[in-house]
């Protein structure tokens, strides 16, 4: 399979919409193609990191400030 076709399958992989057979095709291709294997790892690492980026706390007093904004614009 050509690298370009594998790239499309890789995108399906990250969509979470890939069959077992297609997954096997990526693995088999990447065993022979260092470039695709490397690019796949870079993207997988990035997507895993993005999915796990921490949630941050909302600043204290946020609700009050929104409510003040709503009330002041109504006035």
């Amino acid at each position, binding site marked *: 399979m050509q690298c370009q076709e594998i790239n499309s399958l890789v*995108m399906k992989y*990250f*969509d979470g919409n890939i069959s077992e057979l297609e997954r096997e095709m990526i693995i088999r291709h990447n065993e022979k193609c260092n470039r695709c294997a490397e*690019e796949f790892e*870079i*993207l997988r*690492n*990035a*997507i895993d*990191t*993005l*999915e796990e*980026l*921490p*949630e*941050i706390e*909302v*600043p204290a007093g*946020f*609700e009050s*400030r*929104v*409510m003040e*904004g*709503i*009330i002041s*614009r*109504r006035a």
Partner: protein
Amino acid sequence: MIASDIEIVNRCLAGDVNAFEVLIERYKKAIYNTAFRMMGNREEAEDVSQEAFIRMYNSLSKYNPEYKFITWALKVTTNLCLDSLRKRKAETVPIDEVFEIKDGKDTPEEEYIRKENQKLVQDAIMKLLDKYREFLILFHHRNLSYQEIMDITGESLTIVKNRLYRARQMLKEELISREKEREKYAVPGNK
């Protein structure tokens, strides 16, 4: 009993302003975090999130209960983020670094690698065009479905899929180019 979103919306529309605080409390974390990942810093994230809730309140009569309230809330928020980003001049905008609180399970080395990865990815997504960053954040960070992203952005399934495809390509290219830069300046023999 816990009031549903639509019950609260109806209370607000009937004139009970304070009922809106329940919706803010319910969704502030999702809204603020989405804005934070779009804008890249806390200050702008707070401004955009506050404005988003104020706009939601002022247009509650336009809310269509066929959609989940959070979908509509994210639509208002991402539109405001895109507007703010368009108005943002080329001046340097700070990117706040945010790391997970150490849970004690990782070794110091693992902790260091994770922080470096988070910084690398956060910096790289901030380099993407806004419209591509938006889709990556909604799909991979907020874990939303195609349908939810279509509802939020008003785009077709084809565009959602294509834009996600392009966004991931661009993210990959950005990371590869950073890797090449790093190798160029790496001290020989000190990999």
